[in-house]
Structures are given as C-alpha cells and as structure tokens.
C-alpha cells in the first residue's frame, strides 16, 4: 500500500517547506557554520585581531588531558541523568495510569516541574542541599553523612544529576503516560485472565509495547543532558569543586566566555556537535532495531 502524497510539481512543496527551512537555516546552519569557521581562528575577545590558525585549536584540545576527563564525565553524567529520569518517570507513569481517585490532579502536578527553567531548578536544589542551611542537607547530616558539595566532587556530581534528572522527569512522565494509555486494555486483561501477575504483565507486555516511546525519550534525554543542563550546573556548582562537574557544554562556556578563547571554544562546540550527531545516529541504527513499533 502506498500512502505517500504526490505533489504535482515542486513549487507548492517548496513553498510549504520554506518557512521551516528558513528557520533551520537561520537558527541552526548559519550559527553552526560560524562556529566551524571560528574554530579555525584565533581571536581576541573584542574581535580586533583575527588570525587563521588551521587546526591548532583542535590540536590543543586533543592534547589536553582535562578535555578527555570532561568527555568521560559528560558520558557518565548523561547516562546517570537519562537513566534516573527515565526510570523515575516510568514508575510514576505506571502508577498514575491506574484507575485511582483524583488521577487528573496527580498527573497535572507531576507535569508542573517541566515549566521550571533549568537555572531555577538549580537554585531550588541549591537551597535544599546547601550544606549549612538546606533542609535536605541537614537531614543528611543528622544521618551521619558529611554532606559537602562545595568540596566533595562526588557530592557535587550527585547534586547536579539529581537536579537535572528531576527537571526532566515531567517531560518523560507525559510521554510515558500517553504511551501507556495507547496500549489496549484488552491485551493486558487477557494476560491477567491467563494468570500473569502485575510485574510479569508489565515486563512482557507493557514495556515492549512502550519501547518506541522509551527510545524517543532516550534520544531526547541524552541530548538534554549534553546541552540543556548548563543552567543547572552554572547555578549549582560552576563546574566545581575542582573540575568534577565540568561537562563538555560547561567547558565550552568557561573557555569561550570567561576565557575569551573563542577559537578553542568553537572547536569544542564542533566536537560536541559531532559527538551528539554520532550518538543519535548510533541510537537510531542499533537501538531502533530492538524497538517494536
């Protein structure tokens, strides 16, 4: 069956595509190409003197052990954020999908945090976990845990992961809930009649049928962890202590804005872009095979 729509001629499709192409061109391709060009230059902050330096910026980048450390950290961070926010959201969605009183209210409340900007989420978590004044931090101290994200790198990393994941749970929740509601109740009821318990029903029926949603969310969450967590890190830890929360995107900012090294920073952006494109391609190529649409 062929359900493609065939246009007669190319003018109409082009006209329909044009607005989107323009937006992508102006807001993505143009700045991206600027970044690529900038990555071959060495320039002072004010742009008064510019020199073409070829691949020197890239060479400096790949000679820098701190860059590899940041790369490793970013993968760890992305895996933790995506893993935590996906599993928490799935759990919440599975719970909210049941026939319970006031489920509309629960659902609405669970979606709220999505409206919170990353920087605001950072400030909120900063308050809760502030070593001397924060409510959660006090609780931790009462439990005998010497909570100190200002000096302990692991604590700082846990903090930014928690804040970043919390922020993304609502979004994931929304999609999981929609995914769950699209699964026909008759299939689950048939399994229940056959004697399958709730856990078995979930893992053998619901979870596989949910895989397109999970896959989509995985891609979105990884991209989120790579790029959009800047605000959380900037408000909570500024990349510290030491370099323990300096992810790639934060390093781009540190070197470009604070360090006024636009060339080096642009080279990092280009590498970051390549990494995310590659990751997404890999996800589509290999993970998608396991997805049942």
């Amino acid at each position: 069956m062929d359900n493609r729509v065939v246009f007669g001629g190319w003018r109409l499709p082009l006209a329909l595509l044009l607005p989107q192409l323009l937006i992508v061109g102006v807001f993505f391709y143009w700045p991206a190409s600027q970044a690529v060009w900038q990555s071959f230059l060495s320039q002072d902050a004010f742009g008064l003197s510019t020199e073409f330096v070829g691949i020197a910026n890239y060479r400096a980048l790949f000679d820098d052990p701190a860059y590899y450390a940041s790369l490793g950290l970013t993968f760890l961070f992305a895996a933790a954020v995506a893993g935590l926010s996906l599993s928490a959201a799935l759990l919440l969605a599975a719970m909210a999908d049941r026939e319970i009183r006031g489920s509309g209210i629960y659902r609405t409340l669970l979606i709220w945090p999505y409206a919170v900007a990353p920087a605001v989420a950072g400030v909120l978590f900063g308050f809760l976990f502030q070593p001397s004044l924060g409510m959660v931090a006090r609780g931790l101290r009462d439990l005998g845990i010497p909570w100190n994200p200002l000096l302990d790198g692991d604590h700082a990393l846990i903090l930014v992961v928690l804040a970043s994941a919390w922020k993304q749970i609502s979004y994931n929740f929304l999609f999981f809930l929609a995914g769950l509601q699209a699964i026909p109740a008759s299939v689950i009821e048939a399994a229940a009649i056959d004697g399958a318990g709730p856990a078995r029903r979930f893992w053998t029926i619901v979870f596989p049928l949910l895989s397109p949603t999970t896959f989509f969310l995985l891609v979105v969450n990884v991209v989120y962890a790579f790029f959009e967590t800047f605000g959380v890190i900037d408000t909570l830890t500024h990349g510290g202590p030491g370099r323990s929360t300096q992810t790639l995107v934060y390093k781009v900012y540190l070197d470009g804005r604070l360090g006024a090294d636009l060339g080096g920073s642009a080279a990092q952006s280009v590498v970051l872009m390549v990494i995310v494109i590659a990751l997404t391609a890999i996800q589509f190529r290999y993970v998608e095979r396991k997805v049942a649409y």
Partner: protein
Amino acid sequence: MAPTHPFRFALTALALTAAGPAFAVTELQWWHAMTGANNDAVNRLAEEFNASQPDYKIVPAYKGNYGETLNAGIAAFRAGTAPHIMQVFEVGTATMMAAKGAVKPVYQLMKDAGEPFDPKAYLPAITGYYSTSSGDMLSFPFNSSSMVMWVNKDALKTIGLDEAPKTWPEVFEAAKKLRANGFPNCGFSNTWVSWAHLEQLSAWHNVPLATRANGLDGFDTTLELNGPLQVKHLANLAEAQKDKTFDYSGRYDNGFGRFTAGECPIMLGSSGSYGNVRGSAKFAWASAPLPYYPDAPGAPQNSIIGGASLWVMGGKKPDEYKGVAKFFAFLSDTDRQAKLHQTTGYMPITKAAYEKTKAEGFYEKNPALEVPVKELTNKPPTENSRGLRLGNMPQMRDVWAEEIEAALAGKKTAKQALDEAATRGNAILRQFERQVAK
C-alpha cells in the same frame, strides 16, 4: 482630503522645531553591574548630573553581574553598539587594556575635552591598578573595595578575646577554640577564595604572585604563586579544613551569609559587604585588617583593591566624549566622593574625599569603613603589592579555585595544587599574550 495636507505638513514642521532643543541633548549610555543600594546610588548620580547641566544625559542600565556586564559590553562592541561608559571589575582590567581601539584611555579623554584632571588627586593605591606603568590613567576608578576580616565580637568574647586576632597563627588558634565553643561547622571562612588566599595574601606579605610586577609591567608575565609562603598557608588551611576549624564557603561571595547568619564567626570578605553586615548581622561585629604571618619579613605590606572602574569605549563622537569627560569631573568632586563613600561603603577615590570624611569624624562612629583604606595605604606599594594585571583573569581565578579545592579536599598536597595552578595559569597567560600581541 487634499487641502489638509499642507496644514498637516505645517503642523509637523512646527512640532519638529519645537522639539528641536530636546534633540540636542546627547544621551550617554552607562552600563553597570550594581544592585540594591548601590544601584540606587548609580541612578542618583545620573539624575544629579543630568540636572546639573542641559547638554548631556547619562542613561544608566543594569547589565547583570560584573562578568555578565563585561560580556554584554564585548558582544555589543562586536555588534557596533557599545555603550559610552562601561563598569568593568578589576580582574577584567587586562582584557580591557589589551583592547586597544576598543577603549578610549581616560587621560586622553580628559585632555581632549579640556576638563580639569589631576591624576595625583586620586589615591595611588587605587589608580595604580588602572594606570599604565608610566602613570597614564586608563580607566576611571568608580567603586573600590579591599578585603578585610569580618568578626563576630560576641563570639570572640566567649573565648575571652576582646579584639580581633591579628596574625594567622592567632586566627587559627581562635578558630579552633570557637569550633569547640558553639561553632562546630565553621571556625572561620572566606569569600572569593583566590582573592583571599592567593592575591591578597601575596600582596599583604610582599611576595610576588607573578613576575613583571604581577603583570602590571607587561603581558609577558609568569606566575609565581607557588612560593613557600603561599604553599605554607594553603597547607595550613587544608589541615584546618579537616576538623572544620576552617570551612570552605565556595569560590565567589555566596558564602558570606554564613557570617551574617552567625554560622561562621570569622570571615574574610570584601569591605564592600559593609551595608550587608550592617543590615543583617544580629550580633556585635567589627572589621579588622587581614591577618599576617609574623615571621614573614615586612608583613603586613599593603592590601590590593577589588571593585570596579569605568571604561570609556572607543569609536564615539567627540561631542559625546566631552560629555563623558564632564561626567567624570562631576564624579571627582570632593563632596560627592565623600558622600558616595559614606553611603555605599566603597572607598573614597580621591585623597581630598578621604581627608574630608576623616575631618568630619565619620570614622570614629564607623571604624569599619576606615579599615580598608588603612590596609591599602599601610605602606608605600612595592612591585608585589601595586596590584595585578593578568590576562583572562576571570578564568584564571576559576582555575586557581579548582586547585585550591583539590588541596582542601585532600586530593592533592598544597605544593602539588599550587604547582598545577601555576602551570595551568601560565598556559592561560601565554594564550592571552598570543591573542593580544598582534
């Protein structure tokens, strides 16, 4: 409808003529980073200046914190829409200085405009920071502060001290006692970690932070912050961190609330926190000079300034520059400076304003405001204490803070951390030199 056209035209022409004089007012953009009471002070200055003469109008605009204001100014310059006056914090000085063509040096501005201007009228410890090695003033000092030791006098009394401790060994000892006496989480602490424990420490003990007079004499400077004194001090801090005799409060000044909330009884911080302390501390407080190591020869020397200065951006019209020059002359007025000093807590920038405030007996009632001035003028500045001017300083401070954090967390020894801070910092300096040398 046609007959109304000439009439309308006439009306428009009339309106234009009437609006004529208003058009002659030259607007001068002033981007700044002042919030709260200091923001009010900025707006008041602009209003007073605008009311004092008919030709120019200063338009102040808040552009975020110091770093954000600098970035906004740089971005605006690249887009060709730079403001006339930009407030830049002291660590951005090297960046601005290197941007020849992007800025108009203040001495040049005053000379071109023919405004009265005597560089000797300003406190040398302040202008040294913003002048070339030959003494030409590049930017106009606006709000200057220094670092002082804020103490909770009620807390000190509980361990039998009436006065703030003077030397580092005394501070460590007092902090140890305080920790055992009601301050279990923090004997003492600080804000702006590299400013306190590297920059001020080095100047105060007359040891170099970097060669070439800490960079004031040229961008070909290398760091010397891993000297014996700095290493010893960081090792002492790391040791004290173990039992919270010293407790780290972060890289910037977010931790200052630990002092005003009564959690940390001793806090090294900016003298510019005066208004904050006065407003929120619910205990008897005082500010004291920075501590020193008594066995260091010549200590205490003099402290260095923090705060910000006003840079004039390049590429503007001569008439606009005349307005900016008038504004700077207006700011230098002794009465105005004295008042600004007394209300904001920032330092007076002219000698006359300092003398006037002193003569009025202001410091007897507000001793905290004289401490930074005394620190700054404690001795004539040396090569090590005139100030510092290092490229990409905002990033440099983060790198230093990273290494200090590693030492405080026990991941590195003090020596390893400072050696690494010097190596990484030197890489930043060389890159800056390469960028600006062309």
